[in-house]
């Protein structure tokens, strides 16, 4: 995984989301070289709030109103991609997040609203439970099994760290979200989404002990 391949994958993913019209607003991830030669991708002002211990509605509203995301999906779901690399260009950490809107109906609840611009399509009694999904990679904070280097967190649970076999690339993360939570759009634009992205080498960081607990094996 290199800064260049990561940036290319993010841009490529945004392109595909635009073609499928499921990204309503998007921002090119910034690339910044910090002192000493480390490289950060995807820094956006205002994203720190995502980690604070406050009500999810407030987190979402803050992120939304300050455009603190890279992609806003058609139902208000927000995608955030942040990677940082060491001066030797090796991956130091990543934070990938999906924040669904707590207010708007999801694509699954109100398909006609999003596909046909149905005027009253947002009126739905069906309510799915919304929860944020995060993939974090932080090898410097690793504690075997208790805090795996690469892990997935569901619903902002503080100690939810499901081990993941290794760091995850932008396409892998984006398509995980699209395939599972935007299935209709995925199916409709399958060709667009299934094209092979820019290659990123798959690496594993999971420990032998972590393999013994239930964990996730990431794809390409």
């Amino acid at each position, binding site marked *: 995984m290199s800064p260049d391949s990561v940036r290319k994958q993010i841009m490529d993913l945004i392109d595909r989301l635009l073609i499928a019209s499921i990204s*309503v607003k998007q921002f090119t991830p910034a690339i910044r070289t910090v002192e000493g030669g480390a490289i950060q991708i995807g820094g956006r002002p205002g994203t720190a709030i995502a980690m604070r211990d406050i009500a999810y509605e407030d987190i979402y509203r803050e992120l939304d109103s300050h455009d603190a995301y890279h992609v806003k999906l058609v*139902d208000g779901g927000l995608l955030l991609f942040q990677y940082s690399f060491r001066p030797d260009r090796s991956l130091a950490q990543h934070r990938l997040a999906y924040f669904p809107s707590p*207010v708007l109906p999801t694509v699954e609840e109100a398909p006609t609203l999003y596909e046909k611009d149905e005027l009253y399509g947002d009126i739905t009694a069906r309510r799915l439970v919304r929860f944020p999904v995060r993939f974090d990679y932080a090898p410097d904070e690793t504690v075997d099994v208790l805090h795996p280097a690469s892990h997935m967190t569901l619903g902002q649970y503080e100690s939810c760290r499901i081990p993941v076999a290794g760091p995850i690339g932008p396409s892998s993360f984006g398509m995980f979200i699209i395939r599972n939570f935007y299935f209709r759009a995925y199916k409709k634009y399958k060709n667009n989404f299934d094209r092979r992205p820019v290659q990123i080498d798959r690496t594993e960081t999971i420990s032998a002990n972590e393999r013994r607990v239930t964990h996730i094996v990431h794809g390409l």
Partner: protein
Amino acid sequence: MIEVIWGSAKEKPISSRSLAEDLSANLAGDGYLYLGYPIIGSPTGPLKLDALLVSPNFGLVAFDLVEGTDLGEFSARQDDIASMLEVRLKPYAGLKTRRALKFDINVVTYAPAKAHLPDAEPPYFVANRANVGAKVQGFNWAAEAGVFQNLVAAIQVVTSIRAGKQKREPKKADSRGAKLKRVEESIANLDQHQSQAVIETVEGVQRIRGLAGSGKTIVLALKVAYLHSQNPSWRIAVTFNTRSLKEQFRRLINNFTIEQTGTEPDWECIDIMNAWGGPGGRERDGVYHRFCRVNEVPFLDFGAAKRKFGEGKEFAGACSEALSAACHPVALYDLMLIDEAQDLPIEFLRLCYQSLSPPGRLVYAYDELQSLTGSAVPPPEELFGNGADGLPLVRLNQEEGGPRQDIILEKCYRNSRPLLATAHALGFGIYRERGLVQIFDQDTLWTDVGYVVEEGELSGGQPVTLARTPETSPRFLEDHSSPDDLIQFHKFEGSADQTAWLLKAIQADIHEQELRPEDIVVINPNPLTTQREVGPARQQLFAIDINSELAGVSTSADIFSKAGCVTFTGIFRAKGNEAGMVYIMNAQDCASGWDKTATALNRNRLFTAITRSKAWVRILGIGPNMDLLIQEWRTLKQNEYKLRFNYPTDEEKKLLRVINKEMRGKGWTRRKAMRAQRDQLLQAVERGEVDVDQLILELENLKLTSGKK
């Protein structure tokens, strides 16, 4: 003539009315008498003026009204009123010489019920019914006439509606950016009609009609601010069906209330919500949902309503069912305001009316040409239905005296004359080869919405020429660019060509013409294809570093939230949006429909799309239907953007209406039956009962023969 503008005078109804009567009957002079206006924010809270007379004969006279016979400390009140008015008027340069106002501020305490008045020495005045006319006649206007015009303008400034607080710093004097800046600066204040519409308060139903861009939304928001300031205890609801309007309303009402009273509105008393709504807290609530919850009748969501009542009748069905289930609807609000009423079913308007406390204060605003769903708004007698006595529940008074219940905003501040004429000509099909598509029911509406009859007359079978005047379509909206630049039609070979042209044009707008991305809106009028059609253009723009937003429920229509993005939108979300440059793609979809109703509906969509533009519009499309639209527009241009046609007779008008209704029924059932037959055929194919290849062959042959026709 003294023209009375009836504001909210709930606290002093009797004295207000008698003052209006006394002054309009007994004064030989001109002017405006405002009742319950203005409100002036002060450090000690808002000061509400009971009445204010502005007259070129008698100058500025404020009234302190007394309902009973106890005058109290009237001189202290008069001092307050005079000094606050001075504070309010002094900021205006045209009203003062150095630091003094050019005219006197007179204050009269008026107590119609008091027979014997105490002595008062100038500058204090006390009057009752017997001598109020004489007292007012004792004042006179000493300053020159120009100052009077400035005074009227200053009094009528309910607020400054300068929308663009964002910076626009064009470098070239003749770039589109510079032109747009000048246009925006010209639309700074409300005009007299608009401010009267804000103030006039009806104890009952009030209807506001106006063209797109005549300021209906702003008038409604100001009305909320004004009436909330006057009646802080009223429960007020504002409703609409475009979710994107919500933030806009909230911001407008907040700003206006602060301007009026110096304090923020009490949001506990004001609900800004969707027409439908659903469970899940205040943010998701809506009028229909609240009605169901409070009256304990079953709530239907969109899907359930669709299954029950069929496509296109979801909301009408849901509202009508809720209304009949609730025997004695609970009074939810003291005042309701409905924007975009043309897009809401009449059942919903009835439901609103039934949810009001007496006397049923309801304000509804609409533009009949903007109906996107194909239903026209009937007159109020029909709209609100009949009461238990068989008589219409609502009738709009036309009689003299009292606030106006029927308001028309004829001046259009958004679209220039050529643009609006194009929108109307295409919307009605004035120059359509196959005749009119639709027509106003009432002949007077033409003049109401700001046209004048230049030649001929508005009567059946007669040729007529209708044109807009500088009065109703201000010149500054069109003078900045040549007519050929204001409006353009372009036809393309295919979708890719259209996208390529669009890309180039947007690039030029931003890089050469100094428009900001947020000055540009791209509209795809067919809601079914928007998702598919806008993808490639947005992706290609992104690739050349021009960002875009796809308008939807998750984005806001508020200009403040879209910095740096070109907006792409379907027709439903285009409502409430406006921009300097509007691109309409795939306009060919609007040329006609599969029956007359669908044609009218599609034409309305084109109308709505065109009227989003504050300055320029580019209408793009593909195929032979685009030729039809271009041809109609060319004829309009040759006619100097005047509508020249044979006015339909009553019979023809009826036919236009009747055909619309009948065709809808017939076509609908036929199509449904065809669909069923087709499904059967396909199933037969699946079962192997029909030879597929044979069928395809027959279809191919059919295609050839129908192609030859």
